[in-house]
Structures are given as structure tokens and as C-alpha cells.
């Protein structure tokens, strides 16, 4: 208990916990789970956007999308590294992803059905991710906090780029505008669900707050997101698909209609449109790549042996 108190005191003093520091098992476990999940989300997140790389409608957009997908891979890489400082290997985490034991953000279980979705994902999904992640830049665990600083900078670039794609469509031909509205209709509610269940129903929150892994509640972050995003939609001449969405002068924010949590749980539990396909594609890439990874290991081993023989 003494140890726990001292640990909590460090947290309360806003000291950063580093991998070599002693830490409660629960703290370690929570971070491994959260960082791993976050890393997996970046990796799986490459798929829905990657789905439009070969069909991007201009070379400029193709290049920007490639760069974005590459950034996501990069985020995955530093996040896996941050998790590795806590003693889990990338292989273990990858296996947990493929077996379904580890989760990733449910939003990536929705399909990208039009080019507009590439804009909308940047605007809404990266937008929501930033809301979640900015507080993580001050997370008590040092490697995670530092990774998030870099991630957030890139995400906010992606978010602006996504918004710009949607704006171009919203100001384009009637077909393009319809494409943008349709995309907003499909992604709005899933984006709101990205903040997780209402505070009253949220599991891990209290302890995470105390450990300063989490700093705002799900509902607080969701409200911030809505307040930032609804005016952006209005500016584009697009309509958020929520008849109850209106400005509430009293609370100084937008009200929103009820969220369909059965849909949320359905997708979390594997019932979304793309859950199986996402894991199938990741596993296929992994399995088809096995001979390449094996060869790299074998070659490194041969080099080492030759070098030793030469010495």
C-alpha cells in the first residue's frame, strides 16, 4: 500500500512514469491494453483508407492519401514501441489482434463506400481521435505521452486535409455534394460512438482518471467534438443526420439525440459490416509475409555467423 501511495503521489505531482520505474500491475496492464488497442487501430485504420488509394480521383489526392496512410503506419510503429517498453512484444500484440483477443477502434469496421468517405474520415474520425488524444499528450506514462505529441500533430494535419476534401465536394457538382452528405450521414453516429459509452456506463474510467491516463470523461469529450463539428458542417452547407441536434444556449453547447448503443455494441462484438474482412486482410498480409520475415531473420543469422567466422 505504501508503494501504491508513493506511486499515486508521483502521479498527482504530474511526474512522468518511465518504463524502468516500478509501477502497479494494474497500471501496467491498463496501459498495455490501451496502447496496444491504439496501435492496432492505426494498423487496421490503414485498410479503409487504403481501399481508395488505387482509385483516388487526382494524383494530388492520391499522394496525400498515401502520405496519410503512411503516417498511420508510423503511428502504429511508435505505439507498438511504446507498448514494448512495458514488456509485450509486437508479435504478441499482433497475435492478439488476429485472434480477436485485442480490440481496435470499432470505427474501422465501417466500409469506405465512396471517395467522400476519405474526406469524412479525416474530418470526423481523425477529429474525434484528436479530441481523445490531446489529453493523452499529458498522460502520466512518459513514452505514451511523447508518442501522442507526435501523433496529434500529424492527426490535426489529417483532420484539416479531410475537411478540405469534404469542402471541395460540398462546393462541387450536385453528385459530389450528395456524395459528401451521404458520407456525413453514414459516419456521424459512428464518430460520436468513438468516445465510448456514456460516463454512467463506462467501465475502466475512474481508475484511469486517477492514474491520469485519462483526463476527461467520454461525455465531456463527445460534447467538445459535437460543439466543434456541427458549425463546420453548417459552414459546408451539410446537415448532421440528427433532428435533435440544436444549440442549447443554457449549457452553451449543442444537444444531440439518443445514440443507438445497440449498434455500438453490435460492432464492438464483431457484428459490423467489415469486422471479419478487416481481420481477414490483416491476417492474410501477415501470413503471406511470413516467408519474407523468415528470410530476413535467416539472412541476419547468416551474416552474424559469417562475421564471427571471419573474426
Amino acid at each position: 500500500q505504501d508503494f501504491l501511495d508513493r506511486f499515486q503521489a508521483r502521479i498527482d505531482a504530474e511526474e512522468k512514469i518511465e518504463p524502468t520505474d516500478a509501477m502497479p500491475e494494474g497500471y501496467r496492464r491498463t496501459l498495455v491494453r490501451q496502447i496496444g488497442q491504439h496501435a492496432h487501430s492505426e494498423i487496421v485504420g490503414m485498410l479503409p483508407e487504403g481501399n481508395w488509394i488505387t482509385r483516388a480521383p487526382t494524383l494530388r489526392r492520391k499522394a496525400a492519401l498515401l502520405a496519410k496512410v503512411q503516417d498511420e503506419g508510423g503511428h502504429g510503429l511508435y505505439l507498438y514501441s511504446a507498448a514494448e517498453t512495458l514488456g509485450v512484444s509486437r508479435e504478441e500484440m499482433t497475435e492478439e489482434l488476429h485472434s480477436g483477443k485485442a480490440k481496435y477502434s470499432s470505427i474501422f469496421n465501417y466500409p469506405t463506400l465512396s471517395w467522400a468517405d476519405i474526406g469524412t474520415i479525416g474530418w470526423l474520425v481523425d477529429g474525434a481521435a484528436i479530441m481523445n488524444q490531446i489529453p493523452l499528450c499529458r498522460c502520466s506514462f512518459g513514452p505514451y505521452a511523447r508518442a501522442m505529441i507526435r501523433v496529434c500533430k500529424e492527426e490535426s494535419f489529417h483532420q484539416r486535409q479531410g475537411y478540405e476534401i469534404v469542402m471541395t465536394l460540398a462546393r462541387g457538382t450536385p453528385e459530389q455534394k450528395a456524395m459528401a452528405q451521404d458520407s456525413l450521414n453514414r459516419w456521424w453516429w459512428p464518430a460520436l460512438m468513438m468516445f465510448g459509452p456514456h460516463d454512467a456506463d463506462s467501465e475502466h474510467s475512474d481508475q484511469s482518471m486517477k492514474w491520469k491516463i485519462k483526463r476527461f470523461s467520454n461525455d465531456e469529450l463527445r460534447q467538445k467534438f459535437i460543439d466543434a463539428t456541427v458549425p463546420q458542417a453548417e459552414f459546408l452547407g451539410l446537415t448532421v443526420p440528427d433532428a435533435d441536434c440544436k444549440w442549447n444556449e443554457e449549457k452553451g453547447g449543442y444537444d444531440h439525440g439518443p445514440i443507438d448503443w445497440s449498434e455500438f455494441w453490435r460492432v464492438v462484438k464483431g457484428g459490423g459490416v467489415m469486422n471479419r474482412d478487416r481481420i481477414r486482410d490483416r491476417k492474410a498480409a501477415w501470413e503471406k509475409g511470413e516467408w519474407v520475415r523468415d528470410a530476413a531473420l535467416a539472412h541476419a543469422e547468416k551474416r552474424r555467423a559469417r562475421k564471427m567466422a571471419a573474426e
Partner: protein
Amino acid sequence: MALYQAILELADDNLVLGHRVSEWCGHAPLLEEDLAMPNMALDLIGTARTLYDYAGKLEGKGQSEDDMAYLRDEREYRNCLLVERRNDDFAHTMLRQLYFAAFMKPFWDAAANSSDEVIRGVAGKAVKEMAYHIRHAGEWVIRLGDGTEESAARMKDAVQALAMYVDELFVSSAAAAEAEAAGILPKRADMRPAFDAVINHIFAEAMLTTPEVAYPQTGGRDGLHGEDLGHMLSVMQALYRAHPGASW
């Protein structure tokens, strides 16, 4: 129009290979390659964009880089056959990349002395990129060639499959020959020694040998392609063509 044609050939090489590489995105054998693939694709597509833009200006009909990329069909594409070959496995992809970069690196090196300002500009940037592609792809060719039994067999298959497309890199079309005579582009045939030096060095480490090629394949510069390119272009051009005149 000769210069326009010659530039288009170069641009098509870069776009087609960039597109092929981009098909790997999210499906690479390890995460590091999920970063390296878009990186290489971006280099190639970036070069293609500058060249298309320039070609459009030379043509003088107001065609944008995108009109050039998205509105020509496979008979109008002038890329060499090497770059359009399907990704197949990772060994094929890396060898294709190595062959292309081992040619383009000395090409852009020499193009630094072009009489054409745009070409000099492209060359300055591309030469460093191609050096990176040689390094990256070359390391993989070595690892796979001298890795496991399976990887060595796959690497040999890749050489068997792709070696016949190498010679076309060194052949100048009539349009390219004019641009070469004018000092705008380097002479393709001149790249052979530098290319051979790189390939021989890497192949030696990779335990690979360059096979005798009885029938080198050419035709790309005349728009005579294999059957895969058309499928690639249908996917690439679908959206652009479905909305004529739209801005994206």
C-alpha cells in the same frame, strides 16, 4: 511534339510503377514495409506529377496532370513493360523496384546537366530518391536471395520473370532520341555500365545470376503492353471518368 512524347514516357513509367507499389499499402509483409511502400510510391508519383504538368504545358492544349493520367487508355500509355508487371510476391516487387531504380539513378544523375530547366529540377530531387530505392530494394533482394531456401527460390523466380524486361529500359524511342540529341535527356543506352555495376554487385551478394535473355520484351513505348495494365487503369481511372469535368 517529340519532347512532349519523351516526357510522357518518363511520366508514365513513374506513375505506373508508383501505382503498382501503392497497391501494397496495408498489405505488406511487415509494418516497416507498410511505411516503405507508400514512401516509394510517393517519390514516383511526385516525379510523375511534375512531368505530366510539364508535358501538358508542352502540348499546349490546357490538359492538366490529371487529364493526362486519367483520360488516356492503355494503348496511349507509353511506360516500359517492366513497371506494369503485377506485384506478384514481395520478391518480384523488390526486384522490379531495384531494376527500375538502378536505371533511373544514373539517368537522373546525368539529367542534372540537361539543357532543360524542368528536367534539371526533377533530376535533383529524383536522384536522391532513386538512391534510396536502390538501397532499400537492394537490401531486400540480398536478404531474400541469401535467406531461406524458399526465399531464394522465389527470388530466382523473380529474376527469371523480370530479366526479360530490362533491356527495354536502355532503348530510346524516336521521341526520346530527339530529346537526347537536343541535350534535354540523357542517352538511355549510356546508363548500361552504371546499371550493370549496381545489379552485379547486389546479385553477387544475393547469390543470384543474371540469366541469358533469349527474347527481350519491348513494345511499351509504342503502347503495346501486356494484359495487366488495362485492369490497373480501369480501377485507377474509374472515379475521374465517372464525373467528367468535376474538381476534386
